[in-house]
């Protein structure tokens, strides 16, 4: 088995007339990984994918797919990737099977092999009922699956999907996600999206792109673990609570909100990432206070994303406040 990473991007920069879409990004993706490229609109996701799929050249830096350079060995790279562009463009006048057959032949599969592969991906993408239909008459969900089937038809090592679930209804989104998850292992998958739950559900690793730069690159567990918050609802007088928490060194920051029934809802941020729950329980036991909720919240991907991509001015303002 080849141990070389599937994607190797080094100092990649892409400038369009006037603005920089991607600025000196570097990352690697190992074989069999499902990696999500996360970012707001215009963060440089599509540009990165277009460069990887050899559609656009980079201004500077290098990108290699399966060890082949995307610019000088574009043919080798293109044989190894299945790319579904944004908005999934298809020929509306063709029939589903005819289209997939055409794409398979275009990608160099022989006659018999292409028929076999078309059968396989038709099955895999749930297109069995619509093989004879004209693509233009299909619903968005089916068209999306045709695009996926096209990306998979030549058994690519790397599948690049640019916003694969955009414009689908919840059921269709679920089935597309299941399909993507099922690709992991045998294929390497790079998907881009700005829908956060999608990444949480499908990807093993996340790259967060913002204004052309990579802000984070890690597995989901690592990104989301660590300094969460403790939420506790206790029936206690607020001034006493405040005094107690102020004395505790492990609490970096806390917030108290009185709620119904004489309870106070406290959000505690630990200073060194330790779990404060036992301590809170002991405190309540000592004082004889009632507890009706005690939980440890993880940061959601949304929090992480918002924190990372917050504009600088806002971050500074917040620092001033605290």
């Amino acid at each position, binding site marked *: 088995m080849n141990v070389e990473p599937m994607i190797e991007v080094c100092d990649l920069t892409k400038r369009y007339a006037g603005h920089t879409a991607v600025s000196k990004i570097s990352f690697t993706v190992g074989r069999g990984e499902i990696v999500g490229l996360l970012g707001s609109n215009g963060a440089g996701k599509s540009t990165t994918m277009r460069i990887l*799929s*050899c559609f656009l050249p980079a201004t500077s830096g290098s990108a290699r797919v399966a060890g082949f350079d995307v610019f000088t060995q574009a043919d080798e790279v*293109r044989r190894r990737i299945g*790319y579904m*562009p944004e908005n999934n*463009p298809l020929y509306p006048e063709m029939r589903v099977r005819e289209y997939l057959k055409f794409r398979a*032949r275009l990608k160099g599969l022989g006659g018999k092999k292409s028929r076999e592969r078309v059968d396989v991906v038709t099955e895999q993408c749930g297109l069995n009922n619509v093989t004879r239909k004209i693509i233009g008459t299909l619903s968005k969900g089916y068209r999306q699956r045709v695009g996926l089937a096209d990306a998979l038809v030549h058994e690519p090592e790397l599948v690049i999907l640019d916003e694969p679930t955009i414009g689908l209804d919840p059921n269709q989104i679920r089935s597309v996600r299941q399909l993507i998850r099922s690709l992991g292992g045998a294929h390497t998958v790079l998907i881009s999206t700005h829908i956060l739950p999608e990444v949480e559900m499908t990807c093993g690793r996340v790259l967060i792109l913002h204004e052309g730069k990579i802000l984070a690159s890690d597995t989901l567990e690592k990104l989301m673990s660590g300094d969460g918050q403790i939420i506790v609802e206790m029936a206690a007088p607020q001034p006493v609570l405040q005094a107690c928490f102020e004395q505790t060194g492990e609490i970096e920051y806390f917030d108290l909100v009185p709620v119904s029934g004489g309870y106070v809802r406290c959000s505690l941020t630990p200073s060194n990432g330790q779990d404060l729950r036992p301590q809170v329980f002991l405190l309540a036991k000592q004082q004889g206070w009632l507890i009706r909720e005690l939980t440890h919240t993880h940061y959601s991907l949304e929090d992480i994303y918002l924190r990372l991509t917050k504009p600088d001015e806002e971050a500074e303002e917040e620092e001033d406040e605290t």
Partner: protein
Amino acid sequence: MQAYLTLTRRELAGFFVSIAGYVTIAAVVLLMGQSFATMLVQLQGQSSHDPVTQLYYSTLYFWLVMLLACPVITMRLFALEKFSGTFETLMTAPISDLQVVLAKFTAAMVFYMLMWLPSLACILVLRRYTNHVEVFDGGLLGSTFLGIFLLGGLFMSIGCFSSALTRNQITAATISFALSYSLLLLSFLAHHHQINTDWLADVLSQVALMDHMQDFARGVVDTRHIVFYVTLTFFFLFLTLRVVESRRWK
């Protein structure tokens, strides 16, 4: 090679699965019929020493067909793919830019030649109702169709080039119409200059499309004409290729 053939077949199918292909053929057949009728009216009661093919192709309608049908056939080749985004899926498949350009040009040429087939019916009708069989000999028809083929090749390559320039089909058609019409206008300029004998008149007479076509229709196959059309066709295909490749250096 497989990719080239696959793509050519799809492009050709593209003409026939859409109504646009049939509408184009119908419009061309209408103009051809008009051309045929005009010729018959001109010939009525008179005899002519010119071959029928020459009379046929010197009518206004022939040039109308060439100038209008070629941009319409070629305008969708690249512009539509760029507009709908399929250009991206096409160019990320393992296929070279040259293959794409050639496949699209080939498909357009095949469609163009099929479009001219109905004109043979006009010839057959004439043959059936006149007794001057010698006027319709095979060589004459052959050279005429060679002329149509070469002229078509040139106009198709101009059309490919225009279509590659833009993502709007109307713009593509307009550019290719403007280019081919300007080229045709040079023939008028050549006629205008005929009294002079300077180098300009020489050059103009060499690029006069109307004179070339007249030669072909008379049964004269001049290698200079063939070289002229083939080089210019290649030139425009080369330009098309450069435009398609240009996304790599932009």
